[in-house]
């Protein structure tokens, strides 16, 4: 299982050692690609956290007409895979004038149904009496969400952050389609173009692959237990 990674690092150090890394890094603006990926990932995850906690809170705790229908409407979009609606999405983005902008990379992914679902399931375990008592005591709804519901949900929030960081960092088809200029390339798209340009220079390609996988590799080593158990739970819950 590990052999491809070992070969990647091994080849990246052949004929020139660490200078391959310098050469790959400077051959194309990888620094820019990194910053783009970091920007897109951070803003996407912040957006997901805001929209999911508000929506999940409403779906789990409040009572109002149309709630379950709306929730089903949300869930039904989860069944449709991304390639199915890629072309019409492009048309919508171009009507909005968002093609080749950061908005196109970020905004459509700032709501995530799976995250709403996970958080809603967890919010439902909070006793209703706690909520009603707090509201009777004059605690506003937003304050209850911020001071009580969210602090009680730390592990689910960690799961949501991890899933969305990994998803956003690794996403490829979408940024490939909605951006054209080099300044807007995220890391995955940049690496794919680099691969086409340097198709024979394997030392440089392996060096680039190594530093492109490094951030998630470090995240994985740091939060390994949390990541693996999040993935395991995601399967059981669906």
């Amino acid at each position, binding site marked *: 299982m590990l052999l491809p990674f070992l070969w990647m690092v091994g080849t990246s150090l052949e004929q020139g050692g660490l200078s391959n890394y310098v050469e790959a890094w400077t051959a194309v603006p990888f620094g820019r690609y990194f910053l783009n990926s970091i920007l897109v990932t951070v803003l996407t995850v912040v957006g997901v956290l805001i929209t999911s906690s508000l929506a999940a809170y409403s779906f789990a705790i409040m009572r109002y007409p149309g709630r379950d229908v709306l929730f089903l409407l949300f869930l039904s979009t989860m069944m449709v895979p991304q390639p199915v609606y890629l072309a019409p999405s492009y048309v919508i983005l171009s009507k909005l004038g968002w093609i080749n902008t950061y908005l196109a990379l970020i905004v459509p992914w700032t709501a995530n149904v799976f995250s709403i679902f996970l958080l809603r399931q967890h919010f439902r375990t909070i006793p209703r009496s706690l909520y009603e008592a707090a509201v009777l005591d004059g605690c506003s709804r937003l304050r209850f969400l911020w001071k009580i519901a969210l602090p009680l949900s730390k592990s689910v929030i960690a799961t949501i952050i991890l899933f969305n960081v990994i998803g956003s960092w690794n996403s490829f088809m979408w940024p490939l389609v909605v951006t054209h200029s080099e300044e807007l390339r995220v890391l995955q798209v940049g690496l794919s173009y680099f691969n086409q340009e340097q198709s024979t220079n394997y030392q440089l390609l392996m060096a680039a692959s190594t530093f492109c996988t490094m951030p998630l590799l470090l995240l994985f080593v740091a939060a390994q237990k949390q990541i693996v158990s999040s*993935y395991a739970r995601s399967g059981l819950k669906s």
Partner: protein
Amino acid sequence: MRISPKLSPYLYILPAFVIILCFRTVPIVGSFAVSLTDFDIGGLHGFVGLNNYARMLSDARFWHSVSNTVYFVAGVVPASMVIPLLLAMLLRGKLMGKSFYRTIYFLPVVTSAVAVSVVWTWLFNPEAGPINRVLGFLGIDPLLWLREPRGVFAMILQPLGINLEGVISGPSLALVALMVVSVWKSIGYNTVLFLAGLENIPHTYYEAAKLDGGRTWSTFRHVTLPLLSPTTYYVLIMTTIVSFQSFALVYVMTPPPGGGPLGTTNLVVFYLFRKAFDRFEIGYASAISVFLFVVLLSLTLLQRRLAGRRVHY
């Protein structure tokens, strides 16, 4: 400003709702609508009824991409289930070194498909790549891998004097190489799911089986497998759906405009992508995406029906 309490639950949903509506619901419904038009690079010309679907039925390249995809899914799914199940059985209950193994098999899951594809392209390189070097050590002739358009069934049977052509010559060696990468990448996630499933089986069942003198195989067959079936069913559906949508592997390992040697790694999603964004035939591409959606939906429903009889909860 004071907001009526009747209205506020809706306001909480509003941000998520607007995004989901604009970037999921509308484009999903839109793909059905656009598939009935001749939307192309010059914009929308008009309603053309089922013309795009008729074109799809007679498009040889489209059907080639379908048969490639069927081979791909049929190869990837069984391997992506059997290997992780075996691994999970081996790793179950081990406390020592659990996190070490976990790191190893889970690493490919969090690594981006693009980086994985770049690395494997090098591993499969026919001239100097490590895989052909290893084959050389074993005295096996180098293979063309990602550049080999011949079907593997034909390659195996040719020395026996049997010549196969067309679809029955099998997936090309290039496509088989993509299958290997896809399986390698999915092993970790599926192993974790199987491990979680195995941990959910109460110990008492195994003790009962032991008391009854059940042997390893019969315990596996009559206790583990039936009780694991919800997990197995979930893994089956997820792996099928995910492998049906493979794109990055094709795009990076057998780069455009190709779709591989003689189009043999051209999978449906890659073909859809090319039609939509190289040719800008949005109407035709939408017909293909409706086809993709219908196939995935019916596979899910079919598996649910079949599993309904077998799954024991």
